[in-house]
Each structure stands twice: as C-alpha cells, then as structure tokens.
C-alpha cells in the first residue's frame, strides 16, 4: 500500500503540492486526474524519489520511501513514461531487458533477450521489432515498448504517466486495454496520471482528483459520475464554465 500524508512541494514561489493525502491500496488501480501543470507528475516523481518533497511522508507498505534501501525499493517499481523515454542508443530488446542485464535482477544475456521478446509479444509486438532502434518505431510502438520495459522485471507496482498522450483514439484504446489486462494479470498495484477520461474509465478502480495542490476528491470509478463535487463534474465533462479557471 502506498500512503501519502500531507506532502508539500514547491519550486521557488510556485507551491505545486500543498498537503496531498492519498492512499493507494495494494492490487488496485488508482488513476490521478487533474488539469495540466497541476502537480500530477510531481506527485508520481515524489513517490519514486526522483523529486524530494519539502515536507510530509510517503510510505510504501509502512516504510518511509526516503529511508528505504534505494535499489531494493526501485526494484519493486515499473514505470511507463509519457514519451516512452526509451534509450536511443540501445536496440528495443535491450531497452526492454535493461533491468535484466544489470543490477539485482541480472540474468544471462540470452535469457534476458528471451524474456524481452516474450514481453514484446505480450504487448502485441512481433519478435522482429526486438533488433530495431527506438527511432525506427512509431509513437504507438514506442509506447508498447515502454510498457514492455515497465513489466519486464514483473514489478509489484507500475506507474503510468499519461499513457495515451499523442496517440490516435484507436491506439489509445489498445494501450488502455493492454494496461488493464496486464495490471489484472500481474495483480500489480497501478498508479496512472492522465487527463484522458477514456483512459480513466478503462483503467481505474479508484480515481483521485488533484486540484490546487491537494486531492480534491477521491472515490471508486463507479462513484465518479454521481459525485456532486463541482470540480470533478466540470473536469470529467470538459466544461469551460465552472469553478476550475480556464484560460480562453
């Protein structure tokens, strides 16, 4: 279980997180929604230790993430980045098997390649893709490779950062389905940040809305449409009018 208590983070005068309280139960898929530049990405990076919060605590299964042994802690995570973040200098299979070729989960090269090809197959890519370089792939294929890399070492927790940004609706649907299938199949805890409501409905067990640096609303996906919270209603229906300021 991931638990955030009163997490604050500012960049200069810009207070991005102003006391975030959030609980992500094990084995559930939590989706964080909210407008652009509202701190969703910062929140995810705080949990991973890529950014250090100014105050507050973040615990994973009761252990403070700031005090956890770094390698063992990160070995429990997989992450799909918004732009894929594939390493340009490595072929696709070495991207997927990156963690299996070094560090705590190191395997022999042939075995790592075999696992990489299996994971590529799992995300709908043919084995021939394995020896291509990321620059030779389309945006959708890069997302799939990123997804294969995120699940290659079978992590307990997977983070998805805007998984459908920049994809056409059909490819976005495919990625959403893949994410849902994989999370259920692996029994992983998932945390996704997105403002794509189709993704939210496809992926989420629970939804939390981040606004004004705090979690404005949280509940199960089935409760989202019925909530009377005007912020959530404005956001999920994409209305220009409402309590959330929109620049015209």
């Amino acid at each position, binding site marked *: 279980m991931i638990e955030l208590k009163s997490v604050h983070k500012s960049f200069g005068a810009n207070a991005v997180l102003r006391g975030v309280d959030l609980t992500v139960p094990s084995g559930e898929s939590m989706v964080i929604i909210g407008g652009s530049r509202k701190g969703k990405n910062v929140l995810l990076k705080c949990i991973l230790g890529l950014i250090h919060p100014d105050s507050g605590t973040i615990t994973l299964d009761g252990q403070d993430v700031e005090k956890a042994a770094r390698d063992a802690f990160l070995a429990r995570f997989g992450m799909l980045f918004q732009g894929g973040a594939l*390493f340009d200098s490595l072929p696709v299979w070495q991207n997927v098997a990156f963690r299996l070729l*070094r560090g705590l989960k190191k395997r022999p090269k042939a075995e790592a390649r075999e696992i990489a090809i299996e994971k590529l197959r799992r995300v709908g890519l043919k084995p021939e893709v394995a020896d291509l370089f990321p620059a030779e792939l389309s945006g959708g294929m890069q997302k799939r490779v990123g997804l294969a890399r995120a699940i290659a070492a079978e992590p307990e927790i997977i983070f998805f950062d805007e998984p459908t940004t920049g994809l056409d609706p059909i490819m976005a649907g495919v990625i959403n389905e893949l994410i849902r299938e994989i999370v259920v199949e692996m029994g992983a805890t998932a945390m996704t940040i997105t403002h794509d409501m189709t993704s939210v409905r496809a992926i989420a067990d629970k939804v939390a809305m981040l606004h004004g640096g705090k979690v404005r609303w949280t509940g199960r996906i089935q409760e989202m449409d019925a909530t009377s919270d005007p912020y959530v209603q404005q956001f999920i229906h994409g209305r220009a009018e409402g309590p959330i300021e929109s620049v015209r």
Partner: protein
Amino acid sequence: MSLATPLAHLGRTVLGGLAATGRFALFCLDTLAHVLRPPFYLREFLYACLQIGWLSLPVVGLTAVFTGAALALQIYAGGARFSAESVVPSIVAIGMTRELGPVLGGLMVAARVASSIAAEIGTMKVTEQVDALVTLSTNPMKYLTVPRVLAATMTVPVLVGVGDVIGIMGGWLVGVNRLDFNSASYLKNTWDFLEFWDVGSGLVKGAAFGFIVAVMGCYHGMNSGRGAQGVGRATKSAVVGASVLILAANYLLTEAFFSA
C-alpha cells in the same frame, strides 16, 4: 532607476556565479566518489573510449600537423632575425609537446566531445531518459558520467601523444621541403633536445584536460533546461566552460611544472 538596482543585479550575478561554482565542484567530487565504487559499466566505458578517443583522432591529427607546420615557418622566420634558424627542430618539438599539443588537442576535443556529451545527456534529461534510468535502478552518475569521464581522462593523453608526434612531423615536413633542412639532422636535433618531462608534462595536461572536457559536458547535460533551447544552451555552456577551464588549467599546470 535607483543606484541600488545595478548593485543588486551585480550582487545577484556574483552570488549566482558562486552557487554555480559550488554546484560544479560538488558534481566533480560526486563523480570522483562514484569512480571508486561499483557497479562499473565496462561496455559503456569502452564505447566512450571509442567515441572520445578513437573518433577524435582525425581532428586532433589535422590540428597538430598544420600547427607543427606553421610553427616551423614562424620559428624559422623569427630565428632568422638572430641567425638562429637551426633552433627550428628543437623549438617545434618543445612547443608541440609542452604547450600546443595538449592545449590545441584539448580545445579540439572540447569542441567535439563536450558539445556531444552535453547534447546527448541533455536530450536524455529532457526526454526523461535520465529519470527512466533511475526507475530502472541505475544511477545516472555511474552509467552516464563515470564512463565518459574515465574514458576522456585516459584517452586524451593518448591523443596528445599522437598529436605531438604528428605535429613534430608537420614541422619536419616543412623544415625539409620548404626550409632546406637535412631530414636526418632535423630528426636527430628533435630527438636529442627533447627530455622525458617535456612529453610527460604534456600527457599529464592531456589527462587533466580530458577530465575537464567530460565533466563539463556531463554537468551541463545533467543540468540542461527544457526543450531544444535548454539543450542548445547546455551545449554552448559546456564548450565555452571547458575551453576556458582548459586554458586556465594549462596556465596553473605550467606554473606548477616549470616555474623556477
């Protein structure tokens, strides 16, 4: 505008400069600390040796041959004023090995390598590849910085050594073909005059310059701003910073090695 405004601006600039110097010094110390601690990425180190050392050879070689040739012409013209044309082989040799070989070699490597390292790591930073490394339990300092810094520190002295030989040969070509020196006596004069420390000091300078080039490239890449403009600025700062530091370090090392 009050009098305090330019003073405040000056103060901010000085404080900013001091803070940047401190951050850079800490980055150097952090790099050195990581050099000594595993894991070590041999494949990345060898790849960096190829990129920094081997592929810089043409540009360093061409710079050296033309510099040696021009130096021979200048020393000959200058020496003629004192009827001392015969010093051409020895002055070319000492000039190349002590100063021009390491400094020009270092500057050419700075232009080629610091820019490329800063652009590569800067692009990795803005496309979240550096963050991805962390989430894959890989320390970016160990994976990106240490192999490049080690490779540059070890290969630039070799480049300087090769550049010294090529530069001296450039002087010899001009000496023999344009200035009517006898080939054998030109080479004998060069060999007899050179001392071990003339060459050794240049190689030590080469190692220091290699370290500077790679650390500046990595530092500015790791601290690159967002977007194409951020990466462009990081690249420019890496080349300018490395070039200035090389010239400053050259003076300090020369003082340390040769001042009476």
